[in-house]
């Protein structure tokens, strides 16, 4: 998977450059027309790795499905940098230039912005990288048709599964129960949804407890330092109250600096990393839906909608594949034996 990242970045680079050359740098207002040239907005919440990789795989798969930029499709990429009002303005501005056939949103905030702007229209919205679409108000249920103009891929593995996976590894390492898990998160919607669901799952088990610390969400990337300062405060506040750390969904969890902060500023191990990089840096486990699978399957949903499919009949579910990462050094430090089935599942994502 890592081998594919470089060419994807290059493609993305070329795509942006061509777009810029064609429409922006020359100051030419793009002319969108044609029944055979379909216009799509791709709204990226913010330029964090998980979002960019999703977009890369989405564009890659669209290309493989025969959609060629400028020939039979016109994908307009909007990057509001985590600012929801900006996202809404950008969508409106582009709408004024030409009505899109559908809008693809990458991450929760973009999806919410698109939902608001396109309310009352029948323009389809296909979301990806949304871990809690129900909590975000995009859909009512996961796994059933939405009967609206919104569908997408849920970037989530159920919280119960994730807790079970972690507990299977660390259960024997901690005699005192419940095991206290520290959860420092921002006020970003998906993060809020994440901790809510984790707590619900933990309550059912009883042998694990989540202790949360919420800090205000700041726009990424300019708000990143501020959020990291707040996160450090959270670490200091919870250090003595928790046994292990759990990285949250949302922009904060996506930051590499946040993982490094947890590992460096705390004696307690990080048992669940939000991103694969977390496992590489030292988090015991990383378990998320496969970004490649999520991006590609989103493209297939878009393809189906472009061919006349009704998004209201398309069931929003997680992607078929998962990304599992394990850090053996952390495991050995915690005197944990990684069972063979997990080790096999991690495949190449085994870090030391």
């Amino acid at each position, binding site marked *: 998977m890592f081998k594919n990242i470089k060419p994807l970045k290059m493609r993305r680079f070329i795509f942006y450059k061509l777009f810029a050359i064609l429409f922006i740098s020359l100051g030419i207002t793009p002319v969108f027309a044609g029944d055979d040239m379909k216009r799509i907005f791709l709204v990226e919440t913010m330029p964090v790795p998980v979002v960019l990789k999703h977009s890369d795989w989405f564009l890659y798969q669209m290309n493989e499905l025969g959609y060629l930029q400028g020939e039979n499709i016109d994908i307009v990429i909007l990057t509001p940098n985590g600012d929801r009002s900006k996202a809404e303005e950008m969508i409106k501005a582009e709408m004024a230039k030409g009505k899109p056939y559908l809008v693809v949103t990458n991450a929760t905030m973009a999806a919410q912005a698109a939902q608001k702007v396109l309310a009352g229209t029948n323009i389809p919205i296909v979301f990806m990288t949304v871990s809690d679409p129900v909590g975000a108000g995009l859909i009512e249920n996961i796994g059933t048709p939405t009967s609206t103009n919104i569908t997408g891929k849920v970037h989530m593995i159920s919280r119960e599964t994730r807790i079970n996976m972690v507990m299977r590894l660390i259960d024997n390492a901690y005699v005192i129960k419940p095991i206290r898990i520290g959860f420092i998160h921002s006020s970003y919607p998906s993060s809020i949804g994440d901790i809510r669901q984790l707590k619900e799952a933990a309550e059912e088990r009883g042998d694990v407890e989540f202790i949360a610390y919420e800090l205000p969400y700041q726009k990424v990337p300019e708000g990143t330092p501020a959020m990291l300062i707040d996160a450090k405060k959270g670490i200091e506040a919870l250090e003595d109250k928790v046994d292990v750390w759990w990285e949250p969904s949302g922009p904060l969890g996506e930051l590499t600096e946040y993982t490094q902060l947890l590992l460096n500023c705390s004696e307690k191990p990080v048992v669940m990393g939000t991103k694969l990089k977390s496992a590489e840096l030292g988090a015991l486990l990383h378990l998320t839906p496969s970004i490649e699978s999520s991006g590609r399957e989103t493209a297939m949903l878009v393809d189906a909608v472009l061919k006349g499919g009704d998004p209201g009949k398309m069931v929003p579910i997680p992607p078929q594949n998962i990304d599992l990462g394990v850090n*053996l050094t952390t495991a*050995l430090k915690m*005197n944990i*034996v*990684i*069972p*063979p089935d997990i*080790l*096999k599942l991690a495949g190449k994502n*085994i870090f*030391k």
Partner: protein
Amino acid sequence: MRLQTKIGLILLPLIALGILVLGAWSIKTTTDSIKKSVQGHMRQELDDFVDHTLYSLYNLLKENGLDQIGSFVKTYQHQALEEIQNVHRIMNGDMLILDETGSIISTKNTQGDPSKLWEDLINRSELNKNDVVFGDFDSSEGKEIYSSRYFAPWKWTVVYLISSKEINRTEVKIRNTTIGVAVLCIVGGFVILFFLFKFFFVRPVSYLKEVARDITDLKDVDKINIRTKDELGDLARRMEMMAQSIKESQKKQRNWRRHLEEEIKNRTAELQSSEERYRTMFNNNHAVMLLIDPETEFIEDANPAACEYYGYTYDEFLKLKVSDINTLPREHIAEEMENARLMKRKQFYFKHRLANGEIRDVEVYSGPITFSNKELLFSIVHDITARKIVEDSLKKSESRFKAIFESTTDCVLVWDKDYNYLYANQAAIDYVGTTRDMVVGKNMRDGLGHIPDFMHLWMKRVDTVFETETSLRVEDALQVGDKFAYTESVLSPIKKAQGETFAVGVVYRDVTERKEMAQQINEANELKEKMISASSLGIFVYDEIGQCILANEAATKIVGAPHNKIVAQNCNELESWKKSRLLENARAVMADGKERNIEVYTKTTFGRDLWMKCNLARFKMTGKNHLLLIVDDISERKKLEKELQIMNFELVQSNKELDDFAYIASHDLREPLRGISNYISFIKEDYAEKFDKDGMELLNTLKKLCRREEGLIDSLLEYSRVGRTELAYGNVDLNEVVEDIVDAIKPSFIDQNIRFEIPEPLPVINCDSVRINEVFYNLITNGLKYNDKKEKLIEIGFSENIVKKRKITIFYVRDNGIGIPEKHQERIFKIFKRLHVRDKYGGGSGAGLTIVKKIVERHNGRIWLKSDIGQGTTFYFTLQEANNE
């Protein structure tokens, strides 16, 4: 012992032996297969467990550098020991793992003694090899079979144990089953064999035996109820055929006997009937019948009709000899009777004498018959006296017809069936240039043998008439020298009174002349058709009722329609004919037969607009009046004429405008010129003293130029007046005109020797007298002015010529002057064009001839000249030429 018993006894041991051998072979094969199968399964399970489970776990540890981490290794080994429970085993087998000390580290289910197993394994050197080892050992439970594989990384030996009891139990079960099956097969086979043998062999043979007995007893055997497709079935069919054959033979014999009896009976009855019938026929027949003994010449029997005919009683007849009734001499009678007896002839003509002495012509049919072993002559006598009379009459009639044939100029020949000439009339004899003897009685081969093809042709024709008995009309062409002689012949059957054709007569005549004439007519017609076809004029022919029957190619082009559509038209129904008055003229032509030429403009039925020049004429064809219409498409000519008219009109208009312009210009120019001239006169008069000599000379020159200019303007004015003013036509005596002119100009030439000649009095013509006066005046004065001869001669005359059927009067004025070079002859008619310096030959404005030409043209005439340098010039002109047209 019956046959089936013998066969059964022979087959029984063979079947038993076969099943025994098969059973033994089966037991042996099955036991080996079980052992191999068990070993194969043990190997597969061991390999699967070691390669996929143990090595998988071990490799996972090793690849991640955990193979030395005790906790990981222990956990993964534990995982492997749990996995062993999932291995699939057969025959209650057991899989266990021994560590390097020989201890069982997996769950032990076997009842055997592991120490003995370990010893056995130690004794085998294959342990260090990564391959499966097979072996066995004795345990408290009996013999155990094992297979094992060594897993080096953890020094484990994986063993798969199966008790030999399990295998033996299976073998015994298979053996017992096989024996049981064999016994059942023997018994069942024998029973089946017995019943099959009985069904297929014994029962049919018994049935055939009974059938054979029935056949021997001559009983009816229709079908044998054996339908198998084997030899017994074939035998049954053969026996059926045999029985059927015997049955049919008996039936035939019975039929023949019955038929013979019937035949004898019928023949006997027929003979009796025949004799009675012939007797009755002889006695009751109206024909005269006699039975004559050829040896004695006595009449042996005579029927009542004979008695009645000859006038003798039956008893009297029996006493008569043939010579008593036949008038021939006795030797001739004997000779004829011999001919009849030997059947050389059967028809005879005699004269018989009746009892009353009357002699009758008779026709006798006589032939031998045998009656009561005696040969007699049976004679039937017909009285042909009346027929003879008719035949004589016919012969006379034939002579008359012969006379007719002889007198006709057509050749008449008659052949019989063998192509012999029976008759040839004189014309035929003359035609071939021979005598009658050389023809009649000869054969066609004699006459036509030298031209075999022709002869065979005629033979075939004669045969055809004989066969069909109908007349045949033929024509022949025979090459005679370099020419052909054509004949036309009619062959007819000549029949006897009975209707039988006995000869074929032919009447033929030489039709060469007629043929040649027809040929000439055809050629003429062909030429006519080609001419019509090639003509550029459209040619149509309409019949009496107006139906078009002919239209040539040019006609189709002119009308603009295909030939078939044109000939489908009736001119009486065509609107184009009605509107263009073509129909009216066509009817007039058909009525009075007078030819008409008209030009019509029409739009044809096929939409073509055109001008046509039509010639309509009536002619007779096949005795009926037809209309010939010859059409020339003159649309183009008409178009040109119209264009010419327009151009002429435009030209006239243009000339008129020019004339008007010239008049206005000259008239308006004259006034200031007169003013200038008057002012010059005033200056000369009032200021003469103020001018010196040169000044006065310049004034004189100026005055002179004014006069000259005035003269030119006058000429131009005159010229324009000629074009503008209406001509005052009237009858003008040209003699008077010329006389007036001569009188008028004589004073001007008083010092010169002038001679006028008018060869004949000039005519009176209808013209404008003033203008014609100008013409003659100008021409005469020119003839005198441009003349260097001492005696100046002017001849004025005319000639009348017929041009295109019109009378044209040509006037001329001839002089003996200096002449006009040919290159200037056109130029002299241009206004103000002079051929000489101004004052030479008396000067002048140079407009005279132009005005003359204008006047002549206004009189619809033309003017031209002939001139010889030094000899003189003759001007010719005509008047009213155009009007005459």
